[in-house]
């Protein structure tokens, strides 16, 4: 194991894949300088400006040209800078990348990775803070990855680059500097396999991306209160590890889902709906979602704080859930 940051792990993964496969290349604004968050620092020196390529401020072209370059046999890694700016290239992603393989009856594939740094970070307000992972889960043809640790970021990014389908790869801005152990060997992490962050018996907590760390903190706080939470980090939302969640809920009988993004129409609803449908008779209390209110993200800290889902909120909701005794069982 080697200690490195979430950003370094991603850089390592990209470098490894670029060494392995000359058809892998990265494109985005200011990549030559290392990317906005330093996640490409130093790669220009090794791979040159054709493979670590700057781009004009042309999000439609960054995405659309990458679709073409993918169809034509290369593997572009597309850097969107902020997930919010990917909204300037939605036709290219949804109507083109996600559907081309299908519409053309399998004649082409679109192997591309769309990196979209997402989430709340340093008062960056409504146009630089969004988390729209649930949108992408709704779109046939897309894989959706939401790594939370350095090891996962390395392993999933490698899998994403090798995928023959478009992968929306959502790194969270707030954890670029988060450090963790990463295996020495090039461990690939498959899509659709969650990670059991912590075992527990009383309640299952499901989360992903940066929110996983807030949930982990909540699980620790809960432990202190004598509540044993099992914490699952989904790692990818499409496909998502239904089996791991089902197994856990069968054990605990309770489920709490927490994500940073807006609750309404969020992916938490999908998980809640699925579990409510499949494991209805196992549930000892209502499924709880802890996610953001349906308001844009604010700038001033006290306002921002109101929109963030805190460990305390999770603790409160989990405690309430565990206290409920439906009497069914």
């Amino acid at each position: 194991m080697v200690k490195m940051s979430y950003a370094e792990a991603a850089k390592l993964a990209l470098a490894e894949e670029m060494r392995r496969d000359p058809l892998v290349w990265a494109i985005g604004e200011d990549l030559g300088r290392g990317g906005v968050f330093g996640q490409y620092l130093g790669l220009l020196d090794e791979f040159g400006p054709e493979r670590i390529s700057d781009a004009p401020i042309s999000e439609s072209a960054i995405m659309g040209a990458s679709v073409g370059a993918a169809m034509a046999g290369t593997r572009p890694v597309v850097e969107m800078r902020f997930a919010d700016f990917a909204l300037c290239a939605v036709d290219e992603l949804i109507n083109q990348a996600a559907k081309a393989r299908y519409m053309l009856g399998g004649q082409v594939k679109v192997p591309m990775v769309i990196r979209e740094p997402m989430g709340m970070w340093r008062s960056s307000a409504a146009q630089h803070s969004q988390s729209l992972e649930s949108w992408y889960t709704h779109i046939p043809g897309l894989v959706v990855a939401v790594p939370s640790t350095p090891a996962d970021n390395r392993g999933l990014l490698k899998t994403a680059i090798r995928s023959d389908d478009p992968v929306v790869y959502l790194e969270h801005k707030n954890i670029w500097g988060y450090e963790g152990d990463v295996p020495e060997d090039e461990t690939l992490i498959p899509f659709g396999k969650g990670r059991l962050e912590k075992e527990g018996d009383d309640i299952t907590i499901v989360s992903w991306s940066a929110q996983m760390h807030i949930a982990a903190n909540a699980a620790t706080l809960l432990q202190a209160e004598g509540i044993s939470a099992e914490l699952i980090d989904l790692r990818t939302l499409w496909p998502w590890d239904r089996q791991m969640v089902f197994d856990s809920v069968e054990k605990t009988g309770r489920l709490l889902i927490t994500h940073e993004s807006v609750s309404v129409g969020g992916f938490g609803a999908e998980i809640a709906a699925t579990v409510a449908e499949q494991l209805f008779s196992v549930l000892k209390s209502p499924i709880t979602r802890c996610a953001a209110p349906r308001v844009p993200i604010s700038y001033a800290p006290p306002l921002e704080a109101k929109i963030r889902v805190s460990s305390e909120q999770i603790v409160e909701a989990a405690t309430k859930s565990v206290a409920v005794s439906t009497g069914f069982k």
Partner: protein
Amino acid sequence: MIQPPNQNIDKDWFLEHHIMMHRIRAFEETAARANQDKLVLGAIHLSIGQEAIASGVCKNLMKEDFLLSTHRGHGHTLAKGADPEAMMLELLGRRGGICKGKGGSMHIADASVGMLGANGVVAANINIATGAAHAIKLKRETNISCCIFGDGAINRGPFLEGLNWSGVFNLPVLFVCENNGFASTTRTDAMTSGEGAAARARSMGITATEVDGNDIISVDEITREYIANIRNGNGPHLISFNTYRLHGHTASDPASYRPAAEVETAWKEDPIERCSELLSRLGISRKILNEHRKIALEEMERVYKTAKEAPWPSDDNAFSDVQDLGDPREGAF
């Protein structure tokens, strides 16, 4: 205007153009009939009157060159070498359709001849074609990419983004604008400020010209010249071909929003007739030339018959070619 006969012209080459243009025309007429017969499922857009561009451009492309097209893409696809039967099967949504019945007219494609797709979204293929050229450059290959789009497409952002991109990266891509006067039911010039595609391209540092798109000689010549330039590493070029959409926007559109006299005049510039005229002045008999149409109609008649009689695709097809994750129904409801 008909060009004066020129004895240096390679007759065989233009005979092939003549044949191809007739094949496109016959395909479109047959598709129109299939549409009237209510056998075509979605909307189809016919390229009648614009065949010289399809034939003139695509004949100068190699099989390895990429082609990206529009909603009005049957002619381009045929001229790039696709099989009309597989295309007609697709229009009718039948088994054997070139996209397995998943795409229809607006997503027609034949990757085996480099044709990477029509597109239902106006201008979307400009960036995709640019990206295919980007891949060619990265792979140090010698083919090129070609994107055909309509005059309406130049008012969408991707036109600017793709052209600028191709200039910045000096990519081997040929942009072809079919300036047919209309975007759907609206006259394009009413919604376009400035001089159009070529002027805009030049403002982005891209060599560009406007050419009579109903004159197969001009189309062929300028395309050949530009493609040679592009293959020589001289970066992207754009040609804006002036033409006229002789039929409605879709095969079901009577296009009554334009005066009959205008359409009548436009028919006088029918590119196929102009090509026939040229070839006959070059000494090819009218009999041979008329034969081209007859053969093309017969071919497309056969194609239509086969398509009509073909069964539906198996409905399992609905679930394949989504992504490499096994059956999309698993865990997806």
